[in-house]
């Protein structure tokens, strides 16, 4: 065993990157679920975002345009879900699952000519002298703009839900769509907007994997991150701060177990491999002992006549 082989600074900087796709996907889904819709298509929207972002970045040479395209791609795909569930009043679980299957297939089709290409690199933000601060500098100030955008987004969503009128309306729709409807709020319009926001976030999360974390295009490359994001929203009891904690915990322990294995720590590898899932769930379950139930209308179909 040689723990000194693990460089703590590189390790922390690494797990901030590993957690970012999860943060984007989960915070988007959190807003969707707060509005009362359950979109299980996160994985599908992420993978479509991953290829839309990758293709656009390669064609235009601009990673930022890639991320924008990823957001558009994810939102467009989520619009399909919105149509199925809000207009056609289809079952949300089935529609979400279908969206994932469709997204995986569509992305494989779109990505056929992009296998083995290296995308343009999104540079790190230049923080000037801040990056020279020992320890903190390399950990916090050597990242790309999207990573910081993820953090800002979590704070913005938290503030929006807690303090703004928009957040109040969104929560009202999610808690009781009949009451919100009676008050004159456009339930379907609000939900559709939330679903599209969720799709855009998932798309950016997917593009973060294909443009920064891996960086390449491979079919099925999101490999289940969307499902983890879905679980994370529930275990974080629909609270942005806990969601952030959960994402860092998950990303951190995933990185840690790989590093510990490389350093030859004498813990059986099976335990290390399952540790991110177990620890994240245990911590978040303990945190959510207080009363914090799901939005009351989550997953229920709304029709104005009923």
């Amino acid at each position, binding site marked *: 065993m040689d723990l000194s082989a693990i460089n703590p600074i590189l390790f922390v900087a*690494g797990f901030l990157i590993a957690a970012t796709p999860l943060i984007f996907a989960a915070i988007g889904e959190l807003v969707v679920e707060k509005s009362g819709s359950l979109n299980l298509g996160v994985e599908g929207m992420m993978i479509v975002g991953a290829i839309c972002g990758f293709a656009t970045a390669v064609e235009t040479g601009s990673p930022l345009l890639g991320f924008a395209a990823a957001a558009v791609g994810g939102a467009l795909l989520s619009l399909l879900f919105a149509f199925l569930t809000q207009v056609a009043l289809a079952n949300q679980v089935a529609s979400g699952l279908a969206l994932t299957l469709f997204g995986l297939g569509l992305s494989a089709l779109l990505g056929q000519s992009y296998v083995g290409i290296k995308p343009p690199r999104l540079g790190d933000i230049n923080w000037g002298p801040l990056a020279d601060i020992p320890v903190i500098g390399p950990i916090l100030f050597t990242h790309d703009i999207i990573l910081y955008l993820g953090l800002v987004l979590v704070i913005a969503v938290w503030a929006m839900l807690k303090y703004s009128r928009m957040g109040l309306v969104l929560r009202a729709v999610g808690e009781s769509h009949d009451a919100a409807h009676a008050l004159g709020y456009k339930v379907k319009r609000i939900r559709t907007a939330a679903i599209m926001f969720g799709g855009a976030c998932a798309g950016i999360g997917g593009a973060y994997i294909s443009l920064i974390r891996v960086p390449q295009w*491979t079919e099925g*490359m999101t490999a289940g991150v969307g499902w983890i994001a879905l679980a994370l929203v529930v275990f974080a009891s629909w609270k942005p701060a806990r969601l952030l904690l959960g994402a860092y915990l998950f990303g951190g322990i995933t990185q840690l177990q790989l590093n510990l294995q490389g350093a030859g720590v004498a813990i059986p*590898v099976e335990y290390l491999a399952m540790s991110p899932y177990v620890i994240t769930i245990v911590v978040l379950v303990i945190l959510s002992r207080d009363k914090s139930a799901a939005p009351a209308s989550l997953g229920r179909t709304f029709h104005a006549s009923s």
Partner: protein
Amino acid sequence: MKLTSLLTSAALALGLATTAMADDKTKVGFVYVGPVGDGGWTYEHDKGRQAVEAHFGDKVETVFVESVAEGPDSERVMTQMALDGADLIFTTSFGYMDPTNNVAAKFPNVKFEHATGYKRLHPNVSTYSARFYEGRAIQGHIAGKMTKSNIIGYIASYPIPEVIRGINSAYIHASKVNPDVEFKIIWAYTWFDPAKEADAAKALIDQGADVILQHTDSTAPQAAAQEAGNVVTFGQASDMGQYAPFPRVSSIIDDWAPYYIARTQAVMDGTWESMDTWDGIGPGMVGIGEISDAVPADVKAEALAMKAALADGSYHAFTGPLNKQDGTPFLADGETADDGTLAGMNFYVEGIDAEIPQ
């Protein structure tokens, strides 16, 4: 899950309907563990499938299902293929071993071919694999010569004999040319997860590895090495030539096409029988991708000489004297490992400072 059962019964009904209209075409099914575009393992199997189609033209019909999880779900996929009228089914991952044999028991008239396994419980099951460890020996030689930090990172998938054999073979030949070499092994517990493979590669690079060997299917570790700039990699299962000449300096290429064509032909002729095939560099099932100019000329010449010796059988990758990790003798001087030992290999050779997950 009402939906699932509904879909399954619909699929079954559809399957029965098509079986009833069975025609004279030979139907060949493939079950893949990853997507056909993984650029590695599954990509090469799918190239084999396309070769079967190209070779037989109208006389065959091929079907495949990709990204099938190892375990019970694969049994469902195979059953569906058999009901759909497949005459021959290739199941292309180690974890399909028991499901393949289970399904084979239910369909005695359908031939099953399982890749990299060893169980042939029924007369309609064959197994086939390639001697990837021969390619690993060449990789190990180049890796031992190329490393400057003397730390070689190894991204392993599951602790099964095939993977352990590869680690041993690479280590034996790396330490032969560079006694100071150290292997750091990370078990990813997946065949295909680009993000995780990239993370594993980065963790190894962070810990000083300047050569990365991978036994997972995606090209993500290649991208991570390219990003790091001074790290050597090898293509796995497929050439991964898009990362040549550096970081990818060579590769192990699986060539399944001749085998798939021969077995399909055997089914057509009615000569198919259960057997175990294990071919290496010699018969061409294992190919060595072009060694790029990033490798010094003398090292390249040595590697090619080893390839020739492995191909004509004058050299075996596991040749004594070798000890097991705990110091007990494994092979005496000049002795070579027999196929039984290799097929069930569950120990490291002496010198590897790590433990196999049990």
